[in-house]
């Protein structure tokens, strides 16, 4: 229990950020036309690819074979998420762009 309380007071900034981010996330989505749901989902999908930073960190600190192999796979998968996500979103949005006359 004490550990948790200390954690909270030591990481106030982080916790504030989490709470505020939740509101920002909600605020951003609130009034989106349903047409854009798919590209938006796809774009958000690419953004959570930010997890790749964790993969890069473990890869960069890896010493054992175990960590190197898993880290390498993690970097590849994370990159797939980021690059694939943004490219797919871009392709979807290309379709929208052409509609303008």
């Amino acid at each position: 229990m004490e550990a948790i309380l200390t954690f909270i007071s030591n990481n106030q900034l982080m916790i504030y950020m989490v709470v505020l981010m939740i509101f920002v996330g909600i605020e951003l989505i609130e009034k989106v036309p349903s047409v854009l749901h798919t590209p938006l989902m796809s774009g958000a999908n690419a953004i959570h690819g930010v997890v790749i930073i964790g993969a890069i960190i473990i890869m960069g600190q890896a010493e054992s074979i175990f960590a190197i192999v898993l880290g390498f796979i993690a970097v590849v998968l994370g990159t797939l998420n980021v690059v694939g996500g943004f490219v797919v979103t871009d392709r979807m949005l290309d379709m929208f762009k052409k509609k303008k006359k």
Partner: protein
Amino acid sequence: MKQSILDIIYMIGAVGFIFGIKMLGNPEKAKKGNLIAAFGMGLAIFGTIFLYEHNGKPLNNYLWIFGGLIVGTVIGTMMAKKVKMTGMPQMVSFFNGMGGACAALISLVEFNHLSHEGDFTQAPVLKLIIIFLGLIIGSISFAGSMIAFGKLDEKIKDKTLPLQQVINIGLMVVLLGIAFAASFGVISNPMVLYLLLVLSLIYGVLFVMPIGGADMPVVISLLNSFTGVAAAMGGFLYDNKVMLFGGILVGSAGTLLTVVMCKAMNRSLTNVLIGNFGGGSAAAGEGKEITGSVKEISKTDAAVLMKYSKKVVIVPGYGLAVAQAQHVCHELEQVLEEEGVEVKYAIHPVAGRMPGHMNVLLAESNVSYDKLIEMDDINPEFKTTDVVLIVGANDVVNPAAKNDPSSPIYGMPILEVEDAAHTIVMKRSMKAGYAGIENELFYSNKNSMLFGDAKKTLTDLVTELKSL
């Protein structure tokens, strides 16, 4: 010095994400928004590679890092460029799964970092909780996304186990129980990590398996926000602001998007997750028995009927996407307009396999944006419509959703095409739609069926119209 620069880079990256998502919600700015988010991501990635330091030590293994980045980029770009417009939803689900797997792998490695010769009980409790949660959420997201991918690709069928919900809830309780027991040192065997991994993967499969058909987009959106939360766990672990930021942002935006999508179908999230809408055989047999006969119409008659109409509304569905008939559909629209017929498209929010699926597809073939009318706006117009041409859509025009409480799709808002003077349903066969239920519209005496492949039939219709 390096650390401060990296902090600033992360800040710019995070602002890029916010702007990106904000602009993605606006049709005019969406493309730029995507680029801004990608730019923020690129900054964060390269900043980490070159500037990250832990206890004064920079990162090693550059060869491996860049190797991984290059392999991922090549494969990712190839897959994303190659996929057809009809396959987009699967692709999103696949990439989402990759992110989940990445988060789970991070937890696996970090767990081994924390433990000394297999003893992890000395590690800080909160770190353990974060690692376990990252592993569990990431694995569920991975397994679930892969099943969703397989289902949308029609490689996996819906399957409901007896007592599915009880099993799922039980498994979740066991999962969390083990995770907390291990965090507080009650379980000290390091193999617990792999037990959690396996159980989470099983949970992910069981979670998505029974959810069927039209609900898939909602599930993908939900799994999307799961992966966001898993990424945020990584942010806590490394005290990394941009991971935390991006992860939580997607987690909350994704959750809300899920709810908004449910609303578009007039259903609650709980209903989607535990209801048996399109949930395989259980739902398929239900609904009123339909008696009567269907009427067929020849292509020439259909062409004549449309040519002498004042107003024609086209209802596109997944069949149009499968047949890649969007271009010839646009051609039909142009031919009719030359004859002085007013042509509009009625877009159901869940037509196809994802919200906006039809808009994307029709926009690809240059259909003007203002001709695509959303459900609430077009429904009152059907009364003054002469002919509704339904191309490969089924469940979204099924009147059972309105007047048959025993139907599994009861309550879903539909396009009220039965108000029009005449409907023509273009379909390959009398087979039921994705939700697996009969459609009484087909038996209505105002309706005619036009059997055949959507693309071929539409092409023939255009030829007929031109020769009339």
